[in-house]
């Protein structure tokens, strides 16, 4: 197995709001190996994007604050030390792309300049060299007529093209990790296919690790090796992609998989639907946050949050009393 590149231990991020302290990310842990594509899956408000921003300490402070845990990147804790040290990791060893390509590029600056910035900073290139490299990257990423278009402004590009530009920017410094936060959610499905194909091929040839954040289980199935399912700020289930889809354990994962319509369904049997709606993070019920919507809820679920229970080979684990060996567990 490849070496561990990133290790997140018991990360907690909170937001101080007028409704009280919201635990957006509550005690999550995962590891990312070299060349691995890790999926963080969940619905809106589950904390997946906050996790992503926490990794590089990009949480707006205030109102946000990382209140605990460790983020070990190549053995070094990114949460220790001042921001200046993390800053050099950003865009260099760990790069990011975001959900909305229409707003993620600075509308007033030329494309080439925005890519060159990172090169000048992390690779110490001169301005001219960086601009030339930027055009080269654009070409590599599939922008037709790249040299001329490098001098265009973002508004002259379509959504799909802008996401390509974002990717070119992200991979410009050959990062170890690419964090992609819902990179295709704002795009049409045929463009989504183009972008996913591009990310897949990049992770393949550069042995770059990818953290893919998405709400779309279909996207995850096609691109990820490992998956963490998040609910209400917690990782409720972790598994390799095959295990997760073949044998989901957590009732939430099961419910989610059964509730998405599939194009290959053939027979049109009724979709399952999870009752209720995701909880308000500012007023979580005691115990397991999924309990009010869970059809397997037991008495203990209302009292205590289940611990992370490892099952079978790593990374398989689940946070559910159905599998916890302790009090009230079934197995």
């Amino acid at each position, binding site marked *: 197995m490849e070496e561990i590149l990133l290790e997140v231990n018991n990360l907690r991020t909170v937001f101080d709001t007028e409704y009280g302290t919201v635990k957006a990310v509550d005690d999550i842990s995962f590891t990312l190996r070299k060349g691995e594509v890790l999926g963080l899956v969940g*619905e*809106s408000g589950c904390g997946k994007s906050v996790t992503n921003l926490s990794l590089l300490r990009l949480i707006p402070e205030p109102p946000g604050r990382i209140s605990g845990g460790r983020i070990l990147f190549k053995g070094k804790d990114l949460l220790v030390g001042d921001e200046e040290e993390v800053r050099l990791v950003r865009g260099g060893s760990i790069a990011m792309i975001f959900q909305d390509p229409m707003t993620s590029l600075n509308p007033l600056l030329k494309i080439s300049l925005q890519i060159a910035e990172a090169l000048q900073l992390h690779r110490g290139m001169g301005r001219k060299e960086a601009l030339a490299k930027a055009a080269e990257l654009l070409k590599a990423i599939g922008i*037709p007529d790249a040299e001329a278009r490098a001098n265009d402004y973002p508004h002259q590009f*379509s959504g*799909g*093209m802008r996401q390509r530009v974002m990717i070119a920017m992200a991979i410009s410094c050959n990062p170890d990790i690419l964090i992609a936060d819902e990179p295709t959610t704002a795009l*049409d*499905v*045929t*463009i*989504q*296919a*183009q972008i*996913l*194909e591009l990310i897949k091929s990049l992770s393949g040839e550069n042995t770059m690790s990818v953290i893919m954040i998405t*709400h*779309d*289980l*279909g*996207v*995850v*199935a*096609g691109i990820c090796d490992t998956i963490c399912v998040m609910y209400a700020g917690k990782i409720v289930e972790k598994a390799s*992609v*095959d295990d997760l*889809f073949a044998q989901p354990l957590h009732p939430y994962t099961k*419910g*989610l*998989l059964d*509730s*998405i*319509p*599939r*194009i*290959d*369904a*053939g027979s*049109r049997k*009724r*979709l*399952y*639907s*999870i*009752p209720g*709606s*995701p909880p308000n993070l500012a007023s979580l019920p005691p115990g397991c946050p999924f309990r009010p*919507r869970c059809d397997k809820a037991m008495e203990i679920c209302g009292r205590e949050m289940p611990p992370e229970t490892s099952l079978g080979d790593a990374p398989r684990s689940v946070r559910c009393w159905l599998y916890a060996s302790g009090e009230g567990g079934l197995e």
Partner: protein
Amino acid sequence: MKDDLLLDVRDLKVHFPIEKGILVRRRVGWLKAVDGVSFSVNRGEAVGLVGESGCGKSTTAMAIAQLQKPSSGQILFEGKDLASLSPKELYEARKDFQLVFQDPYSSLNPRIMAGDIIAEPLRIYARRGSITLGEAEIRAKTASLMERVGLLPSFAQRYPHEFSGGQRQRIGIARALALEPKLIIADEPVSALDVSIQSQILNLMKDIQDEFGLTFLFIAHNLAVVEYFCSRIIVMYLGTIAEIADSSVMYENPLHPYTKALLSAVPIPDPPKERLRKRIILKGDVPSPAKERTGCPFRERCSYAFERCATSRPTLI
């Protein structure tokens, strides 16, 4: 079979003028949002209209709902051409086709309570005398509608911001049901919702369809959702129809190259299957609908394109 026809759209075109100029606005071209669309919907059927953004599916829906004036073409509802109706007749006809919208936030007036939102169509028609319901009956009906869509009738006194997205969409559905329409035009009704809420709403609409024998025109960009909900699917591309097929056969046997590409682009939540699939990756972006064009609208991105595609527009077979 002829009796079963509820909606018949014939060569519908919606062109928007593109205007330029600050003082004197002059037309510099047309944006052909919908450019010659014909299809029909039978009673009790659920027909899906799919396509990517800018393909004209929503404009088509708005034109059918008489909220957008068509440039040409006919919309026959129960055999009557809606464009030829007098305002009074159109007002009467509206009762029979109602809308469900995409955005659960902007589709409900923030200053009106849920119960009044649902009762609004009833009150409007009752006041003009086209339905005879007293205020007490309207309230009773509102309560039963709320119950039907899965909301507590006691929520009638709440304002929209006190509901979750899924609940708001339920309010929207109850409002559409209030006048007991024959056709419901649902414009991306689940795209703004979370995955776990999507299936709740889809199932609710399915149950309602069975219960009331409703006809659905369902607009969405998500093929899997449309395939689940509808029995027939219309695929649109750049203001025109690329393919119409029964949803049971579409996945197995798509004909149009665009449908093929579209289907192959939809990810399937099944890792072993995904690994084996061969994707058709389309080149480039959808061209602008403001551009003048001849021939097949898909030809620039089509891997099968040949000479004739550039010169003449294929007709629907």
